[in-house]
C-alpha cells in the first residue's frame, strides 16, 4: 500500500486515506494534532497523566468515527470536540476515585529524574497554576501559548468570538503570572 507521509499532506487528504485504512496517514494526523488534543484534555482535567490517557482514547475513538467527519479539512476542530467530551466524561468518572498525586505523575513520566528535576518542578507548578483558571481560560492559553494556535482557530474550535478568545487569553496569562511569579516564566517578546 502507498504510504502517506504526513507533513506535506493536508488534513483532508490524510483523513481520506485513513478512512481507507492507511495507518501511516492516521499516524500523521496523530503526530500533527496530538499536542493540541493533549492541551484541551489538560485544560479540562488539569492532570498530565489523565490528559495523556484521554488523548490516546480520543484518537482511538476518532478512528472509529472517522466516517462522521463531514469537513475533513476541519479535522482538528472535530477531534478536539471528541477530546473535550471524553475529558468531561473522564472527569466525572474521576470524581469517584482518588486523584493520583502530582509527584508520582512527574516520577512516572521522567526517564531521567535527576536531569529533569527542574523541568518536572516547572511542570508541576504550571499544572497547579492552571487549576486556578476556569476551563475556557485553560483551553485558550494552552492552545495559544503551548500549541501556537491563532485566535481565529481557537474561536472556531471553541465556538466563541475572537474577541472573547483574546480576553480569555489575557485573563489567563495575568492569573498565571500572579500565581507563578516571574522566576518560573520565560517570556517571549514576539507574540
Amino acid at each position, binding site marked *: 500500500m502507498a504510504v502517506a507521509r504526513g507533513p506535506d499532506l493536508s488534513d483532508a487528504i490524510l483523513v481520506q486515506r485513513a478512512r481507507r*485504512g492507511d495507518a501511516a496517514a492516521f499516524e500523521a494526523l*496523530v503526530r500533527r494534532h496530538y499536542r493540541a488534543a493533549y492541551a484541551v484534555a489538560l485544560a479540562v482535567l488539569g492532570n*498530565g497523566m489523565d490528559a495523556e490517557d484521554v488523548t490516546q482514547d480520543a484518537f482511538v475513538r476518532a478512528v472509529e468515527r472517522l466516517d462522521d467527519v463531514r469537513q475533513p479539512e476541519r479535522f482538528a476542530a472535530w477531534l478536539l470536540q471528541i477530546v473535550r467530551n471524553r475529558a468531561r466524561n473522564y472527569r466525572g468518572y474521576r470524581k469517584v476515585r482518588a486523584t493520583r498525586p502530582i509527584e508520582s505523575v512527574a516520577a512516572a513520566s521522567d526517564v531521567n529524574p535527576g536531569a529533569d528535576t527542574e523541568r518536572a518542578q516547572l511542570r508541576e507548578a504550571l499544572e497547579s497554576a492552571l487549576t486556578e483558571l476556569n476551563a475556557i481560560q485553560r483551553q485558550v492559553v494552552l492552545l495559544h501559548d503551548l500549541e501556537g494556535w491563532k485566535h481565529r482557530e481557537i474561536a472556531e474550535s471553541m465556538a466563541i468570538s475572537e474577541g472573547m478568545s483574546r480576553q480569555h487569553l489575557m485573563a489567563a496569562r495575568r492569573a498565571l503570572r500572579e500565581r507563578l511569579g516571574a522566576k518560573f516564566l520565560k517570556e517571549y517578546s514576539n507574540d
Partner: protein
Amino acid sequence: MTDERIDLSALDPTTDAERFEEVVGRINAAVAPAMAARRAGATVFGQVAGLWRPLLAAAAIAGVISAATLALVQSPAPENEAEIGLAEVIGVPQQIAQWLRSDESPDPSELLIALEE
C-alpha cells in the same frame, strides 16, 4: 506585560521524544484492528460485500412494486375474446369453428351457408 506569551513548553507532551514515540506507538497499536477492518472494507470484495445488503433490499422493494403494479393494471379478458381460437385466426369462419369446438354437427345446408359467408 500580560499580552506576552507564557512559556508552557514544560507541559509539551512531545518534548520528550522517546516518551512521545511510545505514546504514538500505543495509539497505533490500539487503532490497528480498526484500520485493518477499514483496509478490508476498501477492497473490491469488501465493497461488494458492503453493497450486498443494500442491493438485496433494493431488489426486494423493486419486486414488491412490480407485483403491485401488475396486480393493479391486469384486467380480465373480454368473454367473447376467449371464444376466438386458432381456427378464427387462420381464417376459418366463426360458425364452422364453433361447430369444431362443440359436439354439434351441422347439416349440409347449414355448412353451405357458413362457407358462403
